[in-house]
């Protein structure tokens, strides 16, 4: 199960724990790390995995590491391609996993809206949107031809609003980054970034901000907000799409679909 410590991850993990209670879910957690995640997310990731009693595999693409790939010098596209897409493929191949759970939702983005709950990937982890299996009722076909693997999205039919309602109803712990607080920020390419460590020399300005989705901190756009509770977050939901804050989706037209076809989650 892909696990980053983000809100969707937390919800998915919680559902899995409830499904297999009282035993821990019978699969490991996998985090495809880039070295640029928020420090709070690393702490939360480790704490939740330990609480669930599940093994946590952390994979960092050794090639990207050796080449020192980072979002500032190499741009969002290359950074994401090498650290996340390639890193994920390496980790899935290394573990010889037949299937991986992901927390993606259909309401996030238009090409995701077309994705099946059980999504078949070719030997190279590619997604062919024109050759998706029919998926009727809740009868999921988990069989694979040789070389194929599955990506499974249990939260497919959830909306961002559903996720927050569930977090509230179940009293889940999620990162404080989702709630407004005074944080050091800089403006880069029109996006408001929260400075999470000392790798960015720009002088930061303290603003009251929060994020709607968390990725690598230099690629996560924050919004100025006063929403410090789930109710306030829910009230703020209408207006902009969730992934508007993800700088990686902005690079080219049909950006997400292309990334997915090449193996991005």
């Amino acid at each position, binding site marked *: 199960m892909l696990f980053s410590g983000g809100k969707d991850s937390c919800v998915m993990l919680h559902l899995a*724990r409830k499904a297999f209670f009282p035993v821990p879910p019978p699969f490991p957690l996998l985090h495809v790390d880039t070295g640029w995640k928020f420090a709070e997310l690393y702490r939360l990731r480790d704490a939740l995995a330990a609480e669930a009693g599940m093994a946590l595999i952390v994979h960092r693409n050794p090639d990207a590491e050796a080449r020192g790939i980072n979002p500032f010098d190499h741009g969002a596209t290359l950074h994401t391609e090498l650290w996340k897409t390639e890193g994920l493929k390496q980790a899935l191949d290394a573990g010889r996993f037949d299937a991986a759970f992901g927390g993606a939702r259909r309401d996030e983005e238009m090409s995701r809206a077309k994705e099946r709950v059980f999504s078949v990937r070719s030997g190279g982890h590619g997604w062919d949107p024109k050759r998706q299996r029919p998926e009727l009722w809740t*009868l999921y076909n988990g069989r694979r031809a040789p070389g194929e693997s599955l990506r499974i999205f249990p939260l*497919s039919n959830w909306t961002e609003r559903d996720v927050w309602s569930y977090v509230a109803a179940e009293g889940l712990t999620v990162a404080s980054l989702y709630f407004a607080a005074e944080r050091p920020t800089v403006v880069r390419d029109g996006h408001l970034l929260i400075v999470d460590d000392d790798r960015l020399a720009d002088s930061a300005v303290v603003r009251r901000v929060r994020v709607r989705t968390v990725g690598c901190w230099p690629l996560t756009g924050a919004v100025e907000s006063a929403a410090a509770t789930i109710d306030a977050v829910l009230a703020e939901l209408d207006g902009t799409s969730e992934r508007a804050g993800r700088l990686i989706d902005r690079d080219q037209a049909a950006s997400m679909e292309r990334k997915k076809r090449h193996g991005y989650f």
Partner: protein
Amino acid sequence: MKPLLRLLTCGSVDDGKSTLIGRMLHDCGAVAADRLVGLTDFSLLADGLEAEREQGITIDVAHLYFGTEKRRFILADAPGHEQYTRNMATGASNADLAIVLVDATRGVLTQTRRHSMIARLLGISRFVLAVNKMDLAGFDQAAFEAISEDYARFAGAAGIEAVTAIPVCALDGDNVTERSARMGWYEGPALLPFLEAAEVETASSLPFRMPVQTVIRGPERLYAGTIASGAVRPGDRIAVQPAGTPAQVARIVTMDGDLDEAAAGRSVALALKHHVDCSRGDLLCALDAPPQIADQFEATILWMADEELLPGRQYLLKIGARSVPATVHEPKYKLGIDTMEQLAAKTLALNEIGVANIWTAQPIAFEPYEASRTLGGFILVDQLSAATVAAGLISFGLRRSENVHEQALAVTPSRRAGLKQQKAKLLWFTGLSGAGKSTIANLVEARLHARGRHTFLLDGDNIRLGLNKDLGFTAADRVENIRRAGEAARLMMDAGLIVLTAFISPFRAERAMVRGLVAEGDFIEIFVDTPLAEAERRDTKGLYRKARAGQLANFTGVDSPYEPPEAPEIRIDTMAIDAEAAADLIVRRLEGEPS
């Protein structure tokens, strides 16, 4: 939480469906401001794939989420093109209400009828006929009524009872969120207010049913799944179906503590009072209200693969949490979309709908689809490609199988084989025509016979002269040929014999089916590997010459495929060794001697 309504939108190409959806999303405030920047066409909100935007058509079903003050909606937007009908069925299978779009200037088309029929078939009972592009029809009442009446005639024949027709202009939003001033003659509701108020029946009235998804082996055994119908309480007497084993519920276990009751839709884990045999795929049911149980039933089948249905081939049938090998008989008929007629059919091609009997390798517990989508809907999966090739809806179980029980015999197969001081085996020779199968099999049988083994050789040509003389050489007949040969071989193995067969048996699926008929390790696949060019050069029966001359249709290697085994127990390279050496090699392997 506000109540949820699951919608399906469908219609023909160019009916303006994406525009209508974009309009609904927009008018409900479901479109984020950043997506509206520079947006010139509402349809772009619904077309999600690059190819769709380029070609201006919808290829795959998209799921969209929006809501009003009164209701939440999940909308499955189904593609219009006939070649994507299977994607449309994907959307229809979970929907409560269908919005069927018709272009006011074009009226009801074949595709309109096809989509309506599939939606009805998959259990949608409430329909909205949205007559779109009323602006191009001059907002003419007569045009609207003519189309409504045309559709009503079809709907009556198709068993669609509840239809509400609404004239709209999606582009400008007429009759979408509120009644349009441009169609004052229309007195019904606008689309969204209608959807907010529409009543649909979703709950099943069946008693307690829960497919077991997994058995949790913790401090105690728990049987986990989602309740399909009815409710369950601690102390309830239930039965594990299809075995019929009675059991009693001890506790309803969840991470938030035990429950006093759980009802349909809830995912729970049940602890039972006494240990019973129960595993994934079983159906837990109220003890006094058993489901239907059968290994033969009639079903309506929507074929969704490029390769047509092969009656007799073994597919994997998945229903509830159960997967079981299953075979489809030749269809009784297929449905003509335009006329709703029952047409004669030997098979079903992509997007065709037909009715056929199905038999499963073991009995399954189910309900008719009309009573429960969860317990009466199934998919068929191709065993080799792993693709989902069909969706099926069970009509009813066939009683006849209930009266045929496997007879328990005092003298068992192993005792028969034991008397012969041997172990029954099936040596399955496969390869191209003229590869040398019969020759080698003959030599092997002679050697085994000389060693005092009790054998029988089933030869492909000989079987076709008798048992299978009604079969030809089409793919479907080849499947049935091998099925019968496999069954005959199994009976002889039960008699304790070492059975040798020499059939081209060109398809992996059928060889896998025969392998599944016998105990593991008893099936020995022998691939007589002769290149096509060499077999054709030898042409011992002169058949290749005839096939090349066009006098023989469906000849393996010429105009019918041969799928070589991927992992045969024994491979004979006839270019490297002769028939005598091959026979020696096979006998040594069979007798466990060093080679």
